[in-house]
C-alpha cells in the first residue's frame, strides 16, 4: 500500500511536467478546391473591392501590389521590395525603474529598441518626453541634464561623467547595425529629451534591413537639495518607415 502511494507520488510530478509541455499550433485554410496548411509567414491576403476602387493585397508572400481602375490607382507597399518582413518595432521594456535615487549617485537604466523594416526602404525612430521627471504631488521636477560643460541640449550631445552634474538624459549605443544617431559615438555623451510634440531622431537607416538594435541608456542624477518625491514621466518612441 505504502509502495503504491510512493509510486503515485512519483507519477504525479511526471504527469505535471508532461502537462507543462508547450502546445504546437497550425493554421489550416481551405475551400472547395484547396487546403492550405500554413507553416510560414504567409498569414493574410485579400482583394477588397468597392464601387470606385479595387485594392489587391497579400501580406507575407509578396511585398506589394498594384491595382488600377477608372478613377483610382492604389499601390500597397513598395513595388521594388519583395519582402515578407512587416515593418515592426519593439521596446524590450516599457517600465524603466530608477528605484531610490540618492544625491550625487547617478542611476543608469537601459532598454533596447529593435526595428525590422525589410518591407520598407529605411526608417526613423524619434524620441520625446511628455514632461520632465516630475513629482506629481509637489510639482517638483528633475531638470534635463546640461552635461559636464553645460553644452548638451536636445539636439547636441556632450560628455556627462561628473557626479556633481545633475539632471536627466539619455544616449544610444549600437547593438546590431549602426543606426544610432552618430552624436553618441563617444561613450560618455548624453542628450536631453525633447518635449512632445517635438521629437528628435534617435535611430535611423536609409537602407533596407532587419533587426537593427540600439540600446538606450537613461541616466538620472540629483543634488542633495532635490526634494524627495516620486518622480515620473513618459518617453515616446515613434517608428516610421521612409516613403
Amino acid at each position: 500500500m505504502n509502495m503504491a502511494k510512493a509510486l503515485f507520488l512519483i507519477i504525479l510530478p511526471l504527469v505535471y511536467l508532461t502537462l507543462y509541455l508547450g502546445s504546437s499550433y497550425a493554421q489550416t485554410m481551405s475551400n472547395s478546391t484547396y487546403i492550405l496548411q500554413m507553416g510560414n509567414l504567409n498569414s493574410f491576403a485579400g482583394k477588397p473591392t468597392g464601387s470606385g476602387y479595387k485594392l489587391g493585397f497579400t501580406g507575407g508572400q509578396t511585398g506589394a501590389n498594384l491595382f488600377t481602375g477608372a478613377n483610382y490607382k492604389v499601390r500597397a507597399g513598395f513595388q521594388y521590395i519583395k519582402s515578407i518582413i512587416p515593418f515592426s518595432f519593439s521596446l524590450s521594456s516599457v517600465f524603466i525603474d530608477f528605484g531610490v535615487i540618492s544625491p550625487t549617485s547617478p542611476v543608469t537604466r537601459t532598454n533596447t529598441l529593435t526595428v525590422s523594416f525589410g518591407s520598407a526602404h529605411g526608417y526613423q525612430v524619434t524620441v520625446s518626453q511628455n514632461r520632465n521627471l516630475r513629482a506629481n504631488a509637489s510639482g517638483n521636477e528633475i531638470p534635463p541634464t546640461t552635461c559636464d560643460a553645460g553644452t548638451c541640449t536636445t539636439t547636441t550631445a556632450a560628455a556627462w561623467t561628473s557626479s556633481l552634474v545633475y539632471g536627466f538624459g539619455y544616449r544610444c549605443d549600437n547593438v546590431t547595425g549602426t543606426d544610432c544617431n552618430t552624436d553618441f559615438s563617444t561613450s560618455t555623451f548624453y542628450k536631453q529629451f525633447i518635449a512632445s510634440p517635438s521629437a528628435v531622431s534617435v535611430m535611423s537607416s536609409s537602407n533596407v534591413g532587419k533587426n537593427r538594435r540600439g540600446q538606450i541608456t537613461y541616466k538620472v542624477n540629483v543634488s542633495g537639495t532635490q526634494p524627495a518625491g516620486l518622480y515620473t514621466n513618459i518617453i515616446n518612441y515613434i517608428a516610421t518607415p521612409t516613403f
Partner: protein
Amino acid sequence: MKNKLINIKIFTLILILGSFLLGTTKANAQNVSIGIFPPIMQMDTTPPANVNADFYVQNQSDASVDFNIVFKPFKPANNKNGEIEIIDNIASFPDPLFINRIKVLDEGEPIKTLTIGPKQTQKLVLEVSLPPNEQKGDYYFTVFFVSKPLSSLKSNSTLASATIGMNVLLTVGPKGKTEGGIARFETPFFVNSGPIPFKVEIANRSDHFFAPSGEIIIKNMLNKEKGRVKLMPVNILSNSTRYIPDIIQANIESEGYKKIAEAVEDQSFPVAVFPQKFFLGIYTATLNISLEENGPTFTKSITFFAFPITYLLTIFIVLGIIVFIVLRVRKKIN
C-alpha cells in the same frame, strides 16, 4: 522500513517542488513589440471616390497592447533620404478639413482605439472618402498606432510608449503637369578603385508625387560600355528633392549588395553604386531618368578619372623585390 518510507516521501516532495520550479514560466520585464503591413499606401484618385484599403497591425508582445489611433500630416525631412517630418498642424493639407475624411474601420465600424491580444494580427481598413468637390492636390499623412503606456506610480520611473506608423501618399486629381529634373549628379573626379558611388538627386516641382525610373551608363574613353546602374524607383514628394539609390540596395541579402555594401555604408546619404573594382583611364557616366512612365526624361553626363594606385604600387613592390633578389643572386654567383 519506516525510515525508508519517510525518505521516499521527502524525495517525492522535493521532486514535486522541483517540478513546480521547472514548470514556472519565465518572468520578463514587460516588453512591447508591434508591427504594421504594408508600411506605405500610395493612392492616385479622382474624386468622388471612396477608397477602402486593408492593412494589418500586429502585436508580437507577450501581453495585450492598447492603442490610440492618430492621423498626422507629414512632409519630407530635410536630409532628402525619404525620412518624414511630422507636422502637427492639420490645416497644412490643401483641404484643412481633410482629416475628417480619413477613418480606420474595424469590421465596418470606425475606431479611434484598439486592443490587440498577445501574438495577434488585426485586419483593419483605411477608408478615405473623397467628395466630388474635394480640393485637388497631394495629401501625405501617417496613420499612427500609439501604444498606451502602463500606469505606475510605485517608484521613480520612466514609462515608455511605442508608436508605429504607416505612411499614406494620396493624390487627389486631376494631376497637373509633371515637372522636375536632375538636381545633382556627382561622383569624385579622381578614383583609385571601385565600387564607384554616384550622388543622384532628383527634383520634383510638380503638384503630385512620382517615382522616377532611370539608370546610369558607364563608358570608357573608347566609348565602350562598361556597365549600367539601375536606379531604385523611390517616391519623390511634391516640391521636394530626394537622393536616389540603386535597385540592388532593395535586397540586402543579395550577392550584389555584398559587393557594394561598404560603399553604401560609407556615405551619410543614399548613393547609387557601380560595383566594378578595377578602373584605368577616363570614364563617362551618363544619367538617364524618366520622371514618370510617359516622361519627361532628362540626361546628364559627368566624367571621372581612374588610376589604380594601390594595384600599381603592389606591382612595383613585387617587381622591386624580384629585381632585388635577382641582383643579390647574380652578385653571389659572380
